[in-house]
């Protein structure tokens, strides 16, 4: 347990929000370099190495180079690098917060944060929906993988329509099963 881990989810989420807004205001190469260094240092403080940093920005690995190329062409190299580094720093920071905070803690913080809005939002439900979404992502990822393999086995690599049907059916079935499991576990009661 490092200091990053111990810090409450609420302060961390608030810090993330503040940092996001602050990062938007940073538009000099020096400023961005400092921001990137701070994010790396925070990873270090949480005892997370380069591999963790990479795992946090990995989702951007295709998108970022494209963005960089387009921006380079549109606004020139220096602004393009600033913009992309800013985005990478932000995503890495968000990754750091989620990696050092349990889902339960994040959800508790959200629930507390939503409490003032009690009259308009059912905080309990909102938190549950978010959790279920988090849990469903890997399950749907598995489904995509299975469908792709099945298509491949039948030599239909690129047939989008043939893949769409089992995906939609599978997703709906997952939704049904989840609803049933929640009822069985007393979510409605």
């Amino acid at each position, binding site marked *: 347990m490092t200091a990053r881990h111990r810090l409450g989810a609420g302060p961390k989420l608030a810090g993330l929000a503040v940092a996001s807004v602050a990062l938007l205001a940073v538009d000099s190469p020096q400023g961005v370099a400092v921001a990137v260094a701070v994010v790396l240092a925070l990873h270090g403080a949480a005892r997370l190495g380069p591999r963790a940093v990479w795992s946090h920005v990995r989702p951007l690995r295709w998108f970022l180079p494209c963005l960089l190329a387009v921006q380079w062409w549109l606004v020139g190299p220096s602004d393009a690098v600033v913009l992309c580094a800013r985005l990478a720093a932000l995503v890495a920071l968000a990754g750091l917060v989620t990696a050092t905070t349990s*889902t*339960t803690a994040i959800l508790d913080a959200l629930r507390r944060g939503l409490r003032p809005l009690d009259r308009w939002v059912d905080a309990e439900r909102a938190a549950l929906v978010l*959790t279920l979404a*988090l*849990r469903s992502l890997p*399950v749907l990822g598995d489904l995509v993988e299975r469908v792709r393999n099945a298509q491949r086995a039948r030599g239909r690599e690129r047939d989008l329509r043939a893949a769409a049907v089992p995906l939609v059916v599978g997703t709906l079935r997952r939704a049904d*099963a989840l609803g049933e499991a929640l*009822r*069985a576990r*007393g979510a409605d009661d």
Partner: protein
Amino acid sequence: MSPGPAPIVLDDVHVRREGRHVLRGVSLRLTERRVAVVGANGSGKSTLARLLNGLVLPTSGRVHVDGLDTRRHGARVRRRVGFVFTDPDAQIVMPTVAEDVAYSLRRRGLSRDEVDARVAHELERHGLAGHADHPAHLLSGGQKQLLALSSVLVTEPALVVADEPTTLLDLRHTRTVARRLATLDQQVVLVTHDLDLVADYDRVLVVDEGRVVVDDGPEPAVAAYRELMA
């Protein structure tokens, strides 16, 4: 804690779903500690299992668990009945292992420490203690089913209903799960296609086309089932 068998009573139960007559007049009184249900695909086993915790309600007839009508007291029935599904991915609703078990204990008026202690104990029993904070999707299929079982057992239900809990598992995990079910204090109703698992059961029901056609000890019931499918 060793809850005695909660009597399960089905009284002339019919279930129609989308025009199909899925169960056709089932009357049962289950008091044995180990009851198994076998039968062909589509014969109505899952529907029968889901009647026991009120996930499916009879179109006509009545189901009572521990004296409670599943139609009128669904919530109270579900507190007494733990349900294990075939696909653990369908059953695990929280992103990490310990959180999923803890989810079963919410709104039970337990303190944080108490919840943590019970979750830890349950994970320990299923050899999952080392995975407490891991994402559930990183577990193997067998470990996922053990997690699903932990999340059911942590609430200490009086009755455990399991719908083909071993169908997706390898031999070793099938044995682990079957042994776990066999050693429970609770009453167990197990739906399965694995006839090896029912040998030690007190009572075996064979379901065919929406009816219970055989109701006997494991040996004669399995023999009759084989005959029926021949």
